[in-house]
């Protein structure tokens, strides 16, 4: 399966009445994960997150595509 770039957030057992809710639920959790951490601690948390999610995705072709997009415009 190619890298999914369409909105894809959902949570099992949860019913959504508005399209913006699942993405906002995710984003809030993401920001909460970093609450009260120093910048350095946050950077470490982000690195771990990337590794955890990469292993979950598994498909290295998909991961390479994500890494390519993430790196775009960086230089």
């Amino acid at each position: 399966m190619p890298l999914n770039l369409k909105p894809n957030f959902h949570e099992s057992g949860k019913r959504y009445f508005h399209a913006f809710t699942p993405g906002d639920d995710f984003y809030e959790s993401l920001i909460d994960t970093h609450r009260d951490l120093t910048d350095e601690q946050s950077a470490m948390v982000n690195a771990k997150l990337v590794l955890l999610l990469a292993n979950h995705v598994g498909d290295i072709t998909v991961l390479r595509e994500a890494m390519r997009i993430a790196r775009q415009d960086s230089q």
Partner: protein
Amino acid sequence: MLSTYKYPKYEYTRPPEQSGGTPQRYPVVVVGAGPVGLAAAIELAQSGVPVVVLDEDDTVSVGSRGVCYAKRALEVLDRLGVGQACVDKGVSWNVGRTFFREQEVYNFNLLPQADHKRPGMINLQQYYLEEFEVQRAREFPNLDLRFKNKVVSVHSQGAGATLQVETPDGIYTLETDWLVVADGARSGSRRMLNLDIDGKIFKDRFLIADVVMKADFPHERWFWFDPPFHPGQSVLLHRQSDNVYRIDFQLGWDADPEEEKKPEKVIPRIQAMLGDAREFELEWVSVYTFQCRRMNAFTHGRVLFVGDAAHQVSPFGARGANSGIQDTDNLCWKLKLVIEGKAPSSLLDSYSEERVFAADENLMNSTRSTDFITPKSKTSLMFRNATLSLAREHAFARALVNSGRLSVPAILTESSLNTPDSDVFAGDMVPGAPMDDAPMRLDGKDSWLLDNVGKRFIVLLYVSDPATVSATLLDQFKPLADGPLAPELVLVAHKVSGATPQGTRVLEDQAGRFAERFDAQPGSTYLIRPDQHVAARWRAFDAKKLSQAMARATCTL
């Protein structure tokens, strides 16, 4: 003074208590003649409950306050008789553009969903809404609107409240069975009753500038994250009525409000933003901070809190006045039933329960928008900017960009007034949901579903042919209709061809939107509350179940 608006001055009339009249006790007193207090008063008066409104001022709200009125609030205002005036005077916008630094990241077209009477949102200066409401309020002989009447003390007792009110003629005492507190975010009544409101202050300041554009300017909402003309902050541009544009500059916590308000400081900011020699005139400037907080409960004995007095949200997402108007919509039918002895006062606990639920949803959504717009840490800012960078090309990231979510009403799924589904339905019209609108025909004329329900309990029965509705069914409904809650049976059919039962309204769902949005099949029955929320629904008409659901929805079970 504004160049585009002349403030009305409402005449002070000496109250009867200060004109030698005998002091009397009132059923309901509303404190505060803002958009929310007036909505409460109009709804009570038009449903037959006499009401006194006290306001310390003698005009409408001064300066730039509420701007956006969402579909649900407009539907409530329709039932109060001021919706059309607001829509006629207001401006609707559909295109929103989001910029990040120098570039437009994306734009959206908020084309309203087809076949609803009201648009998703209109922009209108708050003083117009208040002016329309005052005009409407004055049409009711049982609505006593008292300007220059300042509440100076409030005492709540078991069976009501006693107020001391100051007018140009001195101080008088007034007693009421029920007190509706609608005196805003800095509620004096709440303070005098020693009641708390808890939450957090956001450490940020915003500059509001209302400008009159001299030349044509697009009717669009523009939102900038970190623009070159205002680095590191956000800016919002919104069009209002009379060619007035609201510009909102984030300033940061350390900004000096007095300094920032000076025209010599404001005008260059706007010039930099417009980026050319476009002419404009400064109409209003102010600096604000905001808080997100709510009271634990919105009812305290016989004192009932509505609007900003009960809950405050950030301005991102238009959830202040909009939710306040929905508070009154939820409260007033319940208060009327309690006053008339048709429901126990515990029904008012459900007002607090349902509107606290809605307030929490509003607080959550507006806090999320605020956190996206004004990130509080380096990491949070990094994620925000990463989202904006990806948003240019990728749909998933666009969905995460949060510059304020459209204000939508809460779906009261957890309410104790709902009868849980026992039959299977598709779609969103679950018990607790505010009804979707649909185009209808009534007596051969075009009409709207929401213009034909509300103000009382309604039973909507979807049938294939109104002529075939049995006499037995009508006989079973009659005792309910004759009971204290006096619900009305309204038939909905795709096509009306033959005879219809005498004295029963029939809505024709020609476009099929009702069938679609309510997943209706012949026999489908919806019990609708006076505030147009779904209370219960079944696949077949059953008078006994209806009766029980109505009892549940009024705490008389």
